């Protein structure tokens, strides 16, 4: 879970709607100096003032703040179950958990956003709705808490400061970017992911979960670049992902990045018709990736790498 920096969120949200500190101060019943100090983290804002400020900035405030009461505690367990079943593609079970959650959950924009998003993903994977419909639903769910994400996607709007998306909004946007990829709109996919990366660079959320989230977004971006035939760019990004994963001890991604690099090397060799990247290099990287995946029991990744190695080199990767 993320740890949000209150001052940063206020500053970024304020700037995104073009409001000055003076204007915000007026609307929230504090002095401009106080706003400035709050934004710099030098003044502790009270719960009441924070909620007032967030309202003025049209940002739903509950999430960034204290919310969990005893009756919500049960929902968190349900949410975890739901997400586990989705990640294992146990879609019938997921549907059941979703129904339970719908009944239990309190009616507020953030919860409704979550439910709508999850429902869209399940229904798409169940072949009940098309990718286009999933996109509509995901965008609808986003609108519950963000007025117009596309506005913040224009580079001019985020080149100085990103928009302070919540973690849930970020993940919803990642799902949305994926969905655009499914219908072949790779440019939009790329734009959304690049916007997310810029926003996260503002540093308003901290924690190792966020570092790993950034890496995951970069990886999705590399896949998008590959879909658009931009293999060299993808490879540059993957090398960066590799370094970041090692630094942050994101084990799962280390072998994925290594393998993806070999995939791009092969593509570039194919395209140029020459051995731009030596077979020996590709072989070595695949073995590296394989054993690192094996060390972590990442069996799915291990199998993919093994299959790719055998196809290319006509020998078992484990032959020694």
């Amino acid at each position: 879970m993320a740890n949000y920096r209150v001052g940063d969120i206020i500053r970024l949200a304020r700037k995104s709607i073009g409001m000055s500190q003076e204007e915000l101060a007026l609307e929230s019943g504090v002095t401009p100096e106080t706003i400035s100090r709050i934004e710099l983290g030098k003044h502790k804002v009270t719960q009441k003032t924070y909620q007032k400020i967030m309202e003025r900035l049209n940002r739903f405030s509950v999430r960034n703040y204290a919310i969990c009461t005893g009756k919500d505690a049960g929902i968190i367990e349900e949410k975890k179950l739901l997400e586990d079943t989705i990640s294992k593609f146990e879609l019938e079970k997921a549907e059941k958990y979703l129904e339970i959650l719908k009944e239990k959950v309190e009616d507020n924009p953030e919860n409704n956003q979550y439910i709508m998003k999850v429902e869209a993903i399940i229904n798409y994977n169940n072949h009940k709705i098309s990718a286009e419909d999933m996109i509509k639903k995901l965008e609808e769910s986003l609108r519950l808490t963000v007025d117009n994400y596309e506005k913040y996607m224009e580079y001019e709007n985020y080149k100085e400061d990103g928009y302070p998306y919540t973690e849930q909004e970020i993940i919803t946007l990642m799902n949305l970017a994926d969905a655009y990829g499914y219908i072949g709109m790779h440019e939009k996919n790329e734009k959304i992911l690049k916007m997310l990366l810029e926003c996260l660079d503002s540093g308003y959320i901290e924690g190792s979960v966020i570092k790993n989230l950034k890496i995951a977004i970069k990886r999705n971006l590399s896949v998008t670049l590959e879909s658009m035939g931009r293999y060299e760019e993808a490879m540059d990004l993957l090398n960066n992902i590799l370094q970041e994963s090692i630094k942050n001890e994101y084990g799962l991604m280390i072998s994925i990045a290594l393998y993806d690099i070999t995939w791009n090397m092969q593509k570039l060799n194919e395209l140029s018709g020459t051995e731009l990247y030596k077979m020996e290099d590709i072989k070595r990287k695949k073995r590296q990736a394989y054993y690192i995946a094996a060390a972590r029991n990442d069996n799915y990744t291990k199998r993919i790498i093994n299959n790719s190695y055998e196809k290319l080199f006509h020998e078992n990767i484990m032959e020694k």
Partner: protein
Amino acid sequence: MLDLTIEENVMEINTLGELLKYYREKYDFSQKSICNGICSISTLSRIEGGKKVVDSLVAETLLGRIGKEVIQFELILNDEDYQLWNIREKIKKYMKEEKYLKVKQLLDEYQLIMPRDESVHEQFVLFFQAKIKIAEKASYEEINGLLYRSLKLTKPEIDNRNQENFIYHPLEIELIVLLMHYQYEGWKQKDKEKNLLYMFLYIKKIYSGRQKEESGIMILMELVEISQKLENDLQIIKYVDEAIEFITQGRGIDNIAKLHFIKAQAIENLYHKSEKWQESEKSCKEECLMAYYVFDITGQKQESKTVKKFCKEKLKWQIIE
């Protein structure tokens, strides 16, 4: 599409009391086990009933006993509590960054303003003083002195034989593991393995997310080390396997190479001179390769060379990349 699960044991709280009551009833804990060493039972009852407000460290410790983690206290603390919270956050940060001088200064500052009547604050200070001593490679005696005093504050009956009704918050787990690791005199005769296993089962059942990972790995690595000291190869392999499975449920890579290499050495030691070697040799080599490549990619060149050397000398086999 890469899947992400949100770690959900972490909560932002408004009503500590409701949360404590919910989980206490869910896991069927007694009030005593939750608040023992932290506050009185009557205080806990009042907290649960929403009639008493406690400071953030007390709240964090109580929740820690039931395996729940808190963040984002920032907005609901009063000024005094916020000041303390802020210093604690800085201490943790500088400790991670190994800026020990800063940590010492902050600990001094903290001690001047911390409440005198709550054990958890002194526990916090002693714990970090011990960690500094560890970093400065002080004597085991000095280290253990601080660790023990820290632990006793919230676990006054820790020296009792029977630990079965204890529940632990993460700091207590770390203190106990460290005391065992630094061979605390008072526990030399204790059945360390049994106590560690008990704690491990506890956190497996009750903790979740990051806290479960961190505490679990700490306990398992200590169990591996104990088995190594006893030179019990089968046990080493058993705990290594369990540790690897535990770590790989998460996304990490820390300790993985070390564990695979320990396993390789244990397999070699166990089977090399027996007729089982033919079937074990392959798995021993695989363990070496996994250790080698992970050491290598994470920049631990010295360790990767050690693996290569082991393969050459003991297995008469060269790792070629």
